[in-house]
């Protein structure tokens, strides 16, 4: 039997479709594929709602139990996990509509919006870490931004499979600080080309090769970003004097203008008077 290319591709496609007959889901369509598995849109017959089904090799299914118990606005809720007859594992989770982070950035959001997204990711990370869960594979492909600006971080707890190298920490056993590294890489990723050196410095600090030199936790990184947004000095960056001055002036602009107005008036009156 000599298979033509088109038949071969067709078979490769249909034989990959999951057999959901033993589940309460009905396959609708394929949404996308990651390095780990394929995500489908499906219909939950019992609850009459659409869900996302992620199908993958059983060995790659992560810490589903821990993740499923995490309830956080930025963590996609997992409804169910199970095994398919062909041995593959699946997660049923909330179907998120929106764009992946790289798609979202293509819409040229403002710096404030970008930093807001990073903050949401950091908050999710902080939350998960306090509950003992790691992400292990944080990268732009795992972040979704919904149509109303909701941020979701997906694919928790599954160790990266030769994924995007730029976001993976060189640490041998991955821990919280590896997630910090990835958060820094994400910050670097969302920053526009002409971003402030202070923000780049924050990203770089999170991405130090030595985990001990990074931020100790996600809230510390977020606090530094917040300091930047309030015009304060950033922990990660030793700023040159002129920049420090510029920042001082920017922060205290109103007061400086008022004082300048006073000085100006005094001088004016003085010269008008002393004629």
């Amino acid at each position: 039997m000599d298979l033509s290319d088109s038949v071969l591709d067709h078979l490769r496609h249909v034989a990959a479709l999951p057999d959901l007959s033993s589940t309460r889901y009905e396959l609708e369509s394929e949404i996308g594929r990651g390095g780990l598995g394929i995500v489908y849109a499906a219909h939950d017959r019992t609850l009459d709602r659409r869900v996302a089904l992620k199908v993958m090799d059983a060995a790659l299914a992560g810490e589903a139990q821990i993740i499923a118990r995490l309830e956080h606005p930025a963590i996609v809720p997992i409804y169910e996990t199970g095994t398919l007859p062909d041995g593959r594992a699946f997660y049923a989770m909330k179907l998120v509509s929106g764009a992946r982070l790289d798609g979202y950035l293509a819409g040229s959001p403002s710096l404030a919006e970008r930093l807001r997204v990073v903050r949401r990711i950091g908050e999710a990370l902080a939350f998960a870490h306090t509950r003992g869960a790691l992400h292990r594979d944080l990268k732009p492909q795992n972040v979704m931004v919904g149509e109303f600006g909701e941020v979701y971080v997906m694919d928790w707890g599954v160790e990266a499979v030769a994924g995007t190298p730029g976001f993976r920490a060189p640490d041998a056993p991955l821990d919280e600080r590896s997630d910090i590294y990835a958060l820094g890489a994400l910050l670097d990723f969302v920053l526009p080309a002409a971003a402030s050196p202070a923000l780049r410095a924050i990203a770089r600090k999170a991405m130090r090769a030595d985990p001990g030199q990074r931020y100790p936790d996600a809230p510390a990184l977020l606090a530094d970003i917040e300091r930047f947004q309030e015009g304060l000095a950033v922990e990660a960056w030793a700023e040159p004097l002129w920049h420090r001055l510029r920042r001082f002036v920017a922060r205290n602009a109103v007061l400086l203008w008022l004082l300048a107005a006073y000085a100006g008036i005094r001088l004016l009156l003085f010269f008008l008077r002393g004629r």
Partner: protein
Amino acid sequence: MDPDTAMGGPHGHFPSTQLSLLEAAAAGLPNEALERVAALYWKPVYRFVRLKFRLSNEDAKDLTQSFFATALERDFFARFDPAKASFRGYVRMAVERFAANQYAAARRVKRGGDIEFEPVSEQAASTESPEQIFEREWQRQLFALALDDLRAHCAEAGKQLHFAIFDAYDLADGDRPSYADLAARHGIAETAITNHLAWARRMLRALVTERLRGVTAGERDLREEARRLWI
């Protein structure tokens, strides 16, 4: 668990669990392993050397034959390091080395060269590299073998109808008949068509996975190849 989807089924004609290559080699069954490798790799190797070294049909066949006859010795499997490459990549590199040696020897013997350069008809049209052709042919052959397994299994398990429908739909090159057509043709409901197709596809997947297991060296290799295989 559905006895039909259990590996081998009630009338399975191949071992219920395929040993991986390394397991087979370690268990001292290298001939069996070699046969499996040859069954799968013959066509891919042939097409690869034909394209890569621009050989005529005859020369390519000769080269392929001698490769399988001589290069695949016992320690072919022992020398393979799963950490470095997939087994498929390893075979390809071995072929390249073998071919290079052959031509070095050939040129020493036959001055002026005896190798005919016959443009392979597909060569001009194909934009794929020889390496990509090699992988594609490997996939093609893997599926072809699994389809043979499926046909045999259906014949033995009395599921000829399932196979007929699968053949008519999934193996159709070009226009596919509609479910309604198939239902009418075989005198069954459309839902039955859907079910039969689903069954055949699941079975095919399982068979492909088993074949794949028999030509990969261990779980990691298997997983990597599986990842590349499914669209």
